[in-house]
């Protein structure tokens, strides 16, 4: 009986902690999807590029990954701005039958980023091992990895800061206005092309932050991004498009449900649990978690 409770506690705590990092990656996506109404399939690739920046900092210059993160974020912000300004923005202005051609452009970007990184770094698996990588915190008989806890705390801090930025600053308010009604925002004097550029940059920077937080306990290879793209979608929809807090909670929910699924159903089916939840939310709670809060 005791054992069962320990197992349950372990499952819940690890699920929530991991979910926190999923949240950060998903918040990046929810911003992009909310403001620009496009599905960004290159999001995982941006996570991957961010992780490589941290990796270079760590191996070539001995910079701790948690500090390297603050180098990766501006780099990715800049990359995101460039992608938005010179590639995606072109399409927003062109008339096409299906808006989904923007999605396809992000597929192309994903291919280019992944294969470009592969050209430089080969497909080798790399890892950043720090002195605290395998430190573990014990609560009773439950064991919790320290990088997971640090990652969770930083992720939540970022979420909070971002929320403040979006609600309090002028720029943040303009971003939210563009997300709500692009045309109205333009009439109100918001420079929409600048806003979308900053949003995409911000989304990319957050993706990089999420990746960096995972690096000390995970590993790195050019295709690592695929693991995150689908997950971020699910969280974005779960949370309600464009909602920061929604995505944060959505990330926790997905982390938790995967963890519970893995413990009580099977490791092989853990992703199915998340996907089924996703469809149920789409059907019965179309506004996501956000709509629950507003009610």
């Amino acid at each position, binding site marked *: 009986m005791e054992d069962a409770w320990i197992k349950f506690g372990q499952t819940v705590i690890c699920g929530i902690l991991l979910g926190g990092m999923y949240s950060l990656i998903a918040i990046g996506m929810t911003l992009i999807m909310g403001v620009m109404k496009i599905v960004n399939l290159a999001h995982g690739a941006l996570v991957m590029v961010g992780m490589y920046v941290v990796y270079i900092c760590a191996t070539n210059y001995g910079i701790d990954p948690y500090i390297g993160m603050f180098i990766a974020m501006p780099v990715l912000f800049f990359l995101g701005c460039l992608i938005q300004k010179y590639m995606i923005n*072109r399409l927003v202005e062109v008339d*096409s039958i299906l808006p989904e051609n923007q999605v396809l452009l992000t597929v192309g970007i994903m291919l*280019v980023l992944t294969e470009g990184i592969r050209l430089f770094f080969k497909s080798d698996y790399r890892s950043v091992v720090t002195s605290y990588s395998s430190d573990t915190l014990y609560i009773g008989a439950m064991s919790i990895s320290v990088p997971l806890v640090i990652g969770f705390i930083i992720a939540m801090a970022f979420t909070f800061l971002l929320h403040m930025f979006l609600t309090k600053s002028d720029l943040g308010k303009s971003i939210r206005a563009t997300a709500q009604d692009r045309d109205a925002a333009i009439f109100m004097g918001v420079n929409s092309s600048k806003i979308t550029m900053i949003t995409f940059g911000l989304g990319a920077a957050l993706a990089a932050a999420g990746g960096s937080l995972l690096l000390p306990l995970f590993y790195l290879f050019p295709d690592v991004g695929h693991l995150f793209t*689908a997950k971020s979608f699910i969280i974005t929809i779960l949370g309600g498009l464009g909602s920061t807090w929604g995505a944060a909670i959505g990330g926790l929910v997905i982390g938790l449900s995967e963890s519970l699924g893995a413990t009580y159903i099977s490791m*092989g089916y853990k992703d199915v649990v998340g996907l089924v939840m996703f469809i149920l939310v789409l059907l019965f709670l179309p506004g996501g978690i956000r709509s629950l809060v507003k009610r």
Partner: protein
Amino acid sequence: MLNKNTLMTIVFALVAVALPVIIKAPYQQHILILVIIWATIGTAWNLLSGYAGQVSFGHAAFFGVGAYSAGLLTLHYGLSPWWGLALGPVMAMLIALPIGAIAFRLRGPYFALATLALGEIFRLMFLNMTGFTNGAKGILIMPAITSKIAYYYIGLGILAATLLVTYLIVHSKIGYYLVSIREDQDAATSLGIPTTFYKNLALLPSALFTGLAGAFYMNYVTFIDPDIVFNLTDISIMVILVVMLGGVATTWGPTIGAALYIIMGELFRTTLGSANVLVFGVLVCLIIMFLPNGIAGELDIIKRITQRKKAGLSGGV
């Protein structure tokens, strides 16, 4: 205008029928067969997503179920996988019903993501039900026919049927309803069009022909596993790429796109070494940025503009 179109179609058909006689090298014939398979999936996807505007990110589910119908018949009953050509489309339509029931309650990006999730669920199910599907070990068969020409003509028949049915649907009353749903679903509903019913009318044939292509793929490539035929990137997203390259909501777009996708991919692969996927990605970006409606789609625009100029009107985009 119609005469010109019919003429073009006849020319296309004649060329397609004559191709394997002109190109005798088996490798080129193999490339043509791959083009046909992709053209079929593309045309099927185009009906649902291009004309009706319901962009599916989960066509791998239909493709995979079609392929597995053929494979499982051989695995469990020792029947020829060619029976899959009959069973595959039926099974694909059967799974399309619940998929439609779920996904058609949603719109736009929500619909796209729901189909994405449903496709992934199918992949994981087939991967984990090892007793029934052989799991990740996949299904390997020994082909009964070795002649490429036979495969080519069977495939061509399938493609022709797909094109014809799609053409008929699109140019019937249903087709106009579908386009109206794409352009403005609310307006369509308010005009009394039962939108869900018509969306299903697009989904079912789309699933049918994708399943048929899947069953044919199993017969031709002779090996499948869940990570191949239910693959999100390599099937579901690539089919969108194929259609977008060629031209969304055009009759010949998917076929042109499939030819470009396969031939260019193959050309790059054999000449550019390990940078081949990178160059392919760059090209995808360029095409979408400069030809956002695909090659066939932009062709129409070009034609329209040149004609307008001829008529003495000021041209402009």
